[in-house]
């Protein structure tokens, strides 16, 4: 076997330049596709992480059917004791209680339906940085009896800080909830939907206003490690009884999951194109290496070399070319990707501003998973094996007497 390996290896270097070009095409394609994959995965991780931080949390707990009906009737009781008990789970780093409902808001002759969210102002700001979105007035504190309005909504109503709006709707058990509430701050959201309809009260004031004392509609839970979602879900299912529903971020944001899937599919198509480049690099070289050695093959078979042994040598050659490229590409890409993971590419200018407004950092993030490497190595290996069928088949059909006449 060592002789055949030696033969295959030396055969590769009979035409150094060509072998290097073929290996280089694999090398660059591997690096390129790894960087591309790293960027995509990094982006998904980042999107998920941001969405989890800014919006859904990793896991949410609601009263049963709340997610469907969004009504205060599906709210649940909540107190500090629950909070403390949950925090005993080491994977849980933050818990956000919210009371969410809809209400009519009026100022002068203009009325709108808005989303009203009762929040714990400090906790909320720790996680979602709501305070940073204030463009006018001040943020809430625990005992505020004022309201924060989204900037777009304030414009629609033509309201300024210091004015008072009428909040009119239904509270818990259908009790009517109406009050005149001073506007203490304006917050700006990048997403237009939110900017036109979001309002915030302090949780205690919201509970009082909607007659939902000690009640909340959702608990958002933030974990220190997204990989622990399943275990924490199990923990929560045991903790809360059947009158609660426990949903993870993927269930809460199916659109995000879907958009990642679509983007991922387009990424895989790009990868496919790169693999075609790799395949041509390998296959073209193999075809040439076969064509120029017909006579040599003829002589080897004539003197008594079994065809399968010759095919073994050509297969080894194919595997060697591929693996020079894939190994070099994988090795070189490790430091590149490690660097990029730790130093995401910063964005500047208008793009950066726009992204900042959405609450995200203006960066192109990267991720590094061993799975990305295995996928590459296996794919290139598969291409090599497929390419190897060309000389194998050629040798199988070769008649030495014909080959010798050249």
């Amino acid at each position, binding site marked *: 076997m060592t*002789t055949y390996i030696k033969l295959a290896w*030396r055969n590769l270097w009979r035409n150094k330049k060509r072998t290097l070009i073929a290996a280089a095409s694999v090398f660059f394609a591997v690096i390129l596709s790894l960087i591309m994959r790293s960027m995509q995965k990094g982006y998904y991780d980042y999107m998920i992480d941001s969405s989890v931080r800014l919006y859904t949390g990793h896991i949410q707990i609601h009263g049963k059917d709340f997610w469907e009906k969004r009504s205060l009737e599906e709210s649940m009781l909540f107190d500090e004791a629950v909070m403390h008990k949950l925090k005993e789970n080491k994977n849980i780093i933050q818990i956000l209680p919210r009371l969410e409902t809809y209400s009519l808001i009026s100022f002068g002759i203009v009325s709108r339906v808005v989303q009203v969210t009762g929040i714990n102002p400090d906790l909320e700001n720790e996680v979602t940085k709501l305070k940073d979105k204030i463009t006018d007035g001040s943020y809430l504190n625990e005992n505020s009896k004022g309201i924060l309005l989204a900037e777009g909504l304030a414009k629609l109503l033509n309201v300024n800080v210091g004015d008072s709006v009428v909040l009119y709707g239904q509270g818990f058990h259908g009790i009517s909830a109406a009050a005149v509430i001073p506007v203490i701050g304006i917050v700006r959201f990048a997403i237009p939907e939110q900017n036109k309809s979001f309002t915030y009260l302090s949780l205690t004031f919201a509970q009082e206003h909607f007659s939902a004392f000690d009640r909340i509609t959702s608990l958002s839970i933030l974990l220190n490690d997204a990989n622990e979602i399943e275990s924490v879900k199990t923990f929560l299912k045991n903790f809360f009884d059947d009158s609660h529903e426990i949903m993870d971020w993927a269930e809460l944001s199916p659109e995000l999951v879907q958009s990642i899937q679509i983007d991922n599919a387009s990424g895989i198509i790009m990868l496919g194109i790169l693999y075609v480049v790799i395949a041509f690099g390998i296959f073209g070289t193999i075809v040439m290496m076969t064509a120029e050695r017909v*006579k040599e093959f003829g002589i080897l078979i*004539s*003197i008594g070399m079994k065809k399968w042994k010759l095919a073994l040598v050509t297969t080894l050659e194919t595997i060697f070319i591929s693996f020079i490229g894939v190994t070099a590409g994988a090795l070189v890409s490790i430091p590149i990707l490690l660097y990029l993971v730790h130093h995401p590419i910063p964005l500047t200018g208008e793009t950066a501003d726009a992204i900042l407004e959405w609450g995200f950092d203006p960066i192109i993030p990267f991720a590094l998973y061993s799975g990305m490497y295995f996928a590459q190595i296996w794919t290139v290996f598969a291409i090599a094996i497929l390419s190897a069928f060309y000389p194998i088949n050629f040798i199988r059909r070769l008649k030495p007497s014909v080959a010798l006449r050249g």
Partner: protein
Amino acid sequence: MKLIELYSVTKIYDETIVPVKAVDNVDLQIDKGEFTAIVGPSGSGKTTLLNLISGLDQPTSGKIVVDGTDISTYNEDELINFRLHHIGFVFQAYNLIPVFTAKENVEFIMLLQNISKSEREKRAIDFLDAVGLKDRINNFPTELSGGQQQRVAVARALASTPSFVLADEPTANLDSVSAESLLDLMEKLNKEHNMTFIFSTHDEKVIRRAHRVIQLRDGKIEKDVLMN
């Protein structure tokens, strides 16, 4: 002792519009220890005849018996194995594996025969010594002259301990001095080891060295003469 027997062997190539009778109803016997030349102009059927003897080509009709076996009963793999153990080959050119040294080339045929590493090495050196290349064993083919390359091919042929050596125009690419000296070597091996050599040529100087000359013309044996 009969080594090779051909009975009414005909080979017709009908790939072209006009079928070509490359070998035409040939009866021939070659004995152990012969030093025989197959001669004739280009296209007379020398290569075809040698290929039929080695099983590289199959006759259209007739029977070929080599070493007592009717080789027409062999399948492709059996023929390859048969050649490996019974026939030593020397071709006109490109005999050697270019990425292997002289020694590795000679060893390679013994590797195919599953001979042990130590035995391979010993025999490779012995045979390269026998063809006068003791100081060239670690040279690659490109570092050897044409004559030296053919000598390595002869050493390889002998290293497989064949029943006979087939050489299709072994001197065609050599200058006359190298050709003479290759013939000297082959003749010496024939005399000292009783190795049978069957070689084709159309070179007068080479023909003169043969002990038996089989003259082909249009696939037929025109003359078959023993020299003194």
